[in-house]
């Protein structure tokens, strides 16, 4: 579940902690007023929360940002095409910078300054990537540029796995996404080699049990899946993307408890599945072919209406399930998607403005009916819950 906070996630997710604290404060006041919690109990709960939240400080954040900036500094050095030194001197400098980063990490780990040590590891990974680019520039290498990104990602993954470094793992996912987008851009075909690389990296994220890492894994996979429709069969096969999304969401809904016993991920899988399905539907309705050729004749209208109805039904279903399972992320995602869908439909219009108005009227009536049904259901359920 997205709201289940893993021990690691607790320290890393400051926003979640602050949101939780805010909510708890509100509830504590109410529970205090009702007399369920004593004043001493309330203070103890507040003190406990405070001690847990403070582990997330500004220093690690700035250390990581510093490492990222350091990487950019090295990379712009590449762009400057520094030629005052001989190649050997330049190579020596690069190797020295690389070893300095990992040596620094060693010293910082030994002094228990783990956040800074991980920042140094991230710096080392940045220097590694910059060195690949610089050496390619020094020797006029072109080859296949995505291969260089893959090499960088492999170096980052090695550092992540051996040093149990979360920032390095995050960098690996970002690099994998860049790699597959680059390769897709050049080849215009499905990039199958991405999958084994993704599985290997995700296995490390699972082993770490690091929730943000798993979210990055999902985001990385989503960027690979969504454009899939453009690349297979007739290059407009977005139904494949929609099917994958719906299948993932259904699997998460149907096998939720079974999945959560191993890894509390079913709520997130449901949200990502919904996102993928909606992305496929959205591309089909408003982006592919339509933008390029602006097919808006009457032949297309029934198909668009069908897709729009399917999209809205899917989003309503997702909302119902999200409410039922208390899946906040999926609920907000479905709200956002619903708003985007309705807005896009409004801009597009079905043939005539009158038809569009009719469509929205029918949709409004149906959603209102659903609201009424949900209210009645809630009414019937509420007394039985309150009874014991």
């Amino acid at each position: 579940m997205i709201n289940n906070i893993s021990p690691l996630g607790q320290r890393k997710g400051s926003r979640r902690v602050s949101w939780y604290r805010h909510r708890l404060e509100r509830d504590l006041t109410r529970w205090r007023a009702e007399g369920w919690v004593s004043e001493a109990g309330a203070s103890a709960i507040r003190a406990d929360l405070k001690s847990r939240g403070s582990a997330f400080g500004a220093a690690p954040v700035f250390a990581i940002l510093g490492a990222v900036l350091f990487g950019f500094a090295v990379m712009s050095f590449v762009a400057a095409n520094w030629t005052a030194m001989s190649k050997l001197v330049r190579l020596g400098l690069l190797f020295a910078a690389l070893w300095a980063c990992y040596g620094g990490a060693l010293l910082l780990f030994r002094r228990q300054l783990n956040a800074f040590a991980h920042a140094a590891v991230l710096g080392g990974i940045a220097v590694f990537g910059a060195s690949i680019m610089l050496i390619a520039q020094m020797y006029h290498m072109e080859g296949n540029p995505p291969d260089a990104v893959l090499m960088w990602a492999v170096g980052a993954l090695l550092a992540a796995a051996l040093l149990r470094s979360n920032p390095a793992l995050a960098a690996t996912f970002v690099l994998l996404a860049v790699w597959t987008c680059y390769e897709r851009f050049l080849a215009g075909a499905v990039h199958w080699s991405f999958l084994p690389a993704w599985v290997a990296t995700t296995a490390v994220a699972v082993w770490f049990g690091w929730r943000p890492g798993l979210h990055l894994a999902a985001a990385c996979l989503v960027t690979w899946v969504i454009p899939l429709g453009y690349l297979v069969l007739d290059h407009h096969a977005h139904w494949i993307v929609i099917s994958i999304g719906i299948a993932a969401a259904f699997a998460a809904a149907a096998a939720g408890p079974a999945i959560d016993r191993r890894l509390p991920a079913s709520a997130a899988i449901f949200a990502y599945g919904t996102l993928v399905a909606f992305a496929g539907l959205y591309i089909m309705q408003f982006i592919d072919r339509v933008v390029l050729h602006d097919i808006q004749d009457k032949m297309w209208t029934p198909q668009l209406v069908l897709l729009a109805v399917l999209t809205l039904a899917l989003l309503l279903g997702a909302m119902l399930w999200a409410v039922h399972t208390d899946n906040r992320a999926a609920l907000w995602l479905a709200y956002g998607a619903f708003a985007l869908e309705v807005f896009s439909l409004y801009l597009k219009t079905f043939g005539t403005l009158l038809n569009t108005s009719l469509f929205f009227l029918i949709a409004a009536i149906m959603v209102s009916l659903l609201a009424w049904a949900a209210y009645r259901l809630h009414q019937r359920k509420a007394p039985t819950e309150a009874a014991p």
Partner: protein
Amino acid sequence: MTAARKLLLSLAIVALAQTGVLAAMVIDRVRLLKSGREITLPIVPVDPRDLFRGEYVRLGYDVSRVPVRLFEGPAPNPNQAFYVVIEKDPDGRWAPVKISRTMPQETSTDRVALKARARHGWPSATSDDRAVSVRYGIESYFVPEGQGPRLEALARDKKMAALIAVDAGGDAAIKGLIIDGALQYEEPLF
């Protein structure tokens, strides 16, 4: 193993592996430049107005456009590497004679195989006069800072060529630039 030893070992492995990868890149390139077969390809200006824009040059060659009819077998996938065999005619000019999906075994001294990728994908129609624009990895050249204007002045109205090293795997590298028959800029190994 203690935690401290394990940490030291892990960091050493990461640093050594990454250094090794970088060193392998350099060594591979130096080997290619040192022991690769040398050929000279005339440069055709890609953008005749300013060849040396900034410190970075785009180089085009006669052999960068290859007739599609030279290809044997099904067209390669986009961004998949293939091999172009070029042959030296009696005048000393190189021209493409064959395209193949796998590395061809060429024994003739007048023939060289170059690894290539299609620049804008493979032409869809298969009419005979079509040509595919390819890159061999020798199309960009970084000139030392400040050298651009000098080389540009030399290149104006003069014949330019690139000295290329090619290894047994078809990989090519620029060794230097030749202007009016004289090697003007030679690439140092280190």
